[in-house]
Every structure is written in C-alpha cells, then in structure tokens.
C-alpha cells in the first residue's frame, strides 16, 4: 500500500520535507502508524491531520492511494 504524505507550515520545517510517498508492507495501516514511520515527534493536539483533504484523526484507517496531510493548528484570515 502506498500513500502520498504532505506537510505544511512549521511542521514542514520540522520534518524537513514538503511531501513524500510512503509504502507499507501490509494492506492495513492507520494514520498513527504512518506518523510513527515518518516522524519522531509525538502525536498531540498541535498536530492536525487530513486524509484526502478532509480533517480526520490518528485512528483513521488508510487505503492505497490516500493523500495524507499533517500540519499545525491553522492560523488563517
């Protein structure tokens, strides 16, 4: 299973990349599994996640081809 991962704002600076492709051996993985794979930062309230451009949480089950984004709390407008 392959997913596309994107990082934004201060989290992109911390991770050091803006996007990447990540592969999993098994057919099932959660956002939490992905986060552990790509980062050493502990999951917390200050890391938001979206799958296919919809807000979700760390328990979300991923499918092949998903686009997953990690970013800090928004500060728009």
């Amino acid at each position, binding site marked *: 299973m392959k997913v596309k991962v994107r990082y934004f704002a201060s989290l992109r600076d911390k991770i050091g990349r803006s996007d990447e492709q990540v592969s999993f051996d098994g057919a099932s993985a959660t956002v939490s599994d992905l986060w552990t794979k790509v980062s050493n930062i502990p999951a917390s309230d200050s890391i938001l996640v*979206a799958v296919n451009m919809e807000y979700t949480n760390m328990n979300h089950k991923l499918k092949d081809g998903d686009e997953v984004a990690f970013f800090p709390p*928004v*500060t*728009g407008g």
Partner: protein
Amino acid sequence: MKVKILKDAMDPYKEVSDYEREALPPGKHGGVVLFVGTMRDFNDGNDVRAMSLDHYPGMTEKHIEKVMQEAHDRWDIMDSYVVHRVGDMVPTDPIVLVAVWSAHRRDSFDACRYIINYLKESAPFWKCEVTKAGVKHWVEHNSEDPGVAKRIAK
C-alpha cells in the same frame, strides 16, 4: 457560491462588486453583508513588517466551501462569495473577504459571521510573520481565537 484563492493583491470592493454584477440576479436581494479582514502592522506586541500565508491547495477551497454550504443550509441566504489571499503580503493588505447576499439582512449578518468565524477557526491557512527585526516565525494561534483550532476533528 464561490471561493477564490488569490496569490496577488486583492481589491475586496472590486471583487465583491464584480461578483455581484456577474452572479446575482438584479433586484432580488435586499442586502449584502461583507467582512473584509486586513493585515494589521501589529500582532501579539511585535512590529510585523511582512507576512507570508501558506495554504493547502485543494483542501483549503474544499474546506471553505463546506463552511459556506453549512451557512446556506442554516440561514435563508441567496449567495455567498469568499476570497482569500495567500503568499507574501504587507500591512494594510486585505487578506480575506466574505460576502453574503440575502433577502433579509438578519440572515446575511448571521451567515457572514458564521463563515468568517469558522473559516478562521478551521480553514487550512498558516501565517508566517516577519518582524521589523527581520525575525521570521510561524504564528502559533489566532489572536482572536486562542485555542479553538484544537477543537477540529475531535
């Protein structure tokens, strides 16, 4: 209902005037409520010289449309238009425009306020400020909405 993400300077009054002429049937709406948010030259006590606004192309538009649709479902409004700047900007630059047309002004006021509140609270934008001392830093929270972003996706 339309969302526009702009990389260049925005003239909010021209934006709303053009949209109204192109998209609204004449003579049917009783009024429009507009909110224009501009970049101030101070934030949390720093003297801000410039700002860069990051966004998530695709999700940002989709999320704002969702917020607008919620306003359309909740109030009796005829149309709504949101324009949001991204990229580099300086103090006095307009950042966001929310316009809501309706037959009765009460609906426009409520819907406009709803859209700007939830847009600020939840739409994927991130401010990076440059102070007069040349220091760049990501803004940690919106000064008007401390902590509210944390409520998303719970």
